[in-house]
């Protein structure tokens, strides 16, 4: 099946029904292996055992940003190509992105208290990440506020594209400003500064989180298609009765 054929919601549903159990199983297996490797990882010479919080914090931060990037592509799909599934997928993705960004903020605070002596500072990285979380909440609120789905989709698409400005700010905040948050240490010119004993479990956890996100996104998109079918049937029922 070609990707373009998935633009048809019925075909998408059939493909999702097939893929979700397999993706779910693969997610469980990868999480089990990644957690096993994470628990065996040695303590960091500076952070001690709290480095294990990074195995949750870093993947959730990446996913929070990846999800908004995907929503931005979907927003272009809504505004430019009028793809029938673009706004469906974007709407399904927003709560997932919000959840992973919240997890990033919570685990970051729990790491910050023992390492920095505080749960929170108004540092550029932390503040721009908080803004991303608020943007997610804005998108969810906008979907719920505008009753007409096609109008809501256009408004959300514009907000999503404007909000994408926050992504490079999050990424480069540690370079542009003097922040308490550490600089890039995984993806950087000159290679990672993290020892493989910690880097490998970190990347495994990131892969497991990404697989979980893909599974949840497929499932949430399927739910949104079904919800719109319910809405359509109810409108038709009301129209036929009237």
């Amino acid at each position, binding site marked *: 099946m070609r990707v373009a054929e998935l633009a048809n919601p019925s075909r998408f549903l059939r493909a999702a029904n097939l893929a979700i159990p397999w993706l779910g199983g693969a997610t469980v297996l990868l999480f089990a292996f990644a957690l096993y490797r994470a628990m065996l990882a040695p303590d960091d010479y500076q952070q001690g055992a709290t480095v294990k919080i990074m195995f949750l914090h870093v993947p959730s931060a990446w996913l929070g940003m990846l999800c908004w990037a995907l929503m931005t592509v979907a927003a272009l799909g809504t505004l430019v190509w009028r793809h029938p599934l673009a706004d469906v997928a974007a709407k399904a993705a927003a709560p997932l992105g919000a959840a992973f960004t919240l997890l990033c903020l919570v685990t970051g605070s729990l790491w910050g208290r023992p390492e920095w002596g505080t749960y929170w500072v108004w540092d550029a990285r932390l503040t721009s990440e908080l803004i991303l979380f608020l943007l997610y909440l804005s998108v969810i609120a906008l979907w719920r506020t505008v009753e007409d789905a096609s109008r809501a989709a256009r408004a959300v698409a514009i907000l999503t594209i404007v909000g994408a400005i926050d992504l490079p700010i999050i990424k480069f905040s540690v370079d542009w400003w003097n922040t308490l948050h550490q600089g890039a240490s995984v993806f950087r010119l000159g290679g990672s500064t993290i020892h493989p004993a910690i880097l490998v479990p970190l990347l495994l956890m990131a892969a497991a989180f990404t697989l979980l996100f893909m599974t949840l996104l497929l499932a949430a998109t399927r*739910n949104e298609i079904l919800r*719109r079918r319910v809405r359509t049937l109810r409108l038709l029922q009301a129209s*036929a009765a009237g």
Partner: protein
Amino acid sequence: MPATAHIDFIVAAYAAGLIVIVALIAWVTLDYRLQRRILAELERQGLSRRSTTLRDASQAVREDV
């Protein structure tokens, strides 16, 4: 630094991770069951996306996916 230093923060972080993941899985699973149940109920009432009556009325609805 002892291996168990700040263990409470580590446990709290993993508990937060578990809560978020379980909540997301519960959300998509329960929502799926709810939508399927409502669709089945509507079909029991004789409504379907391919029924003749509804096809006539479907001109009025543009957002059918």
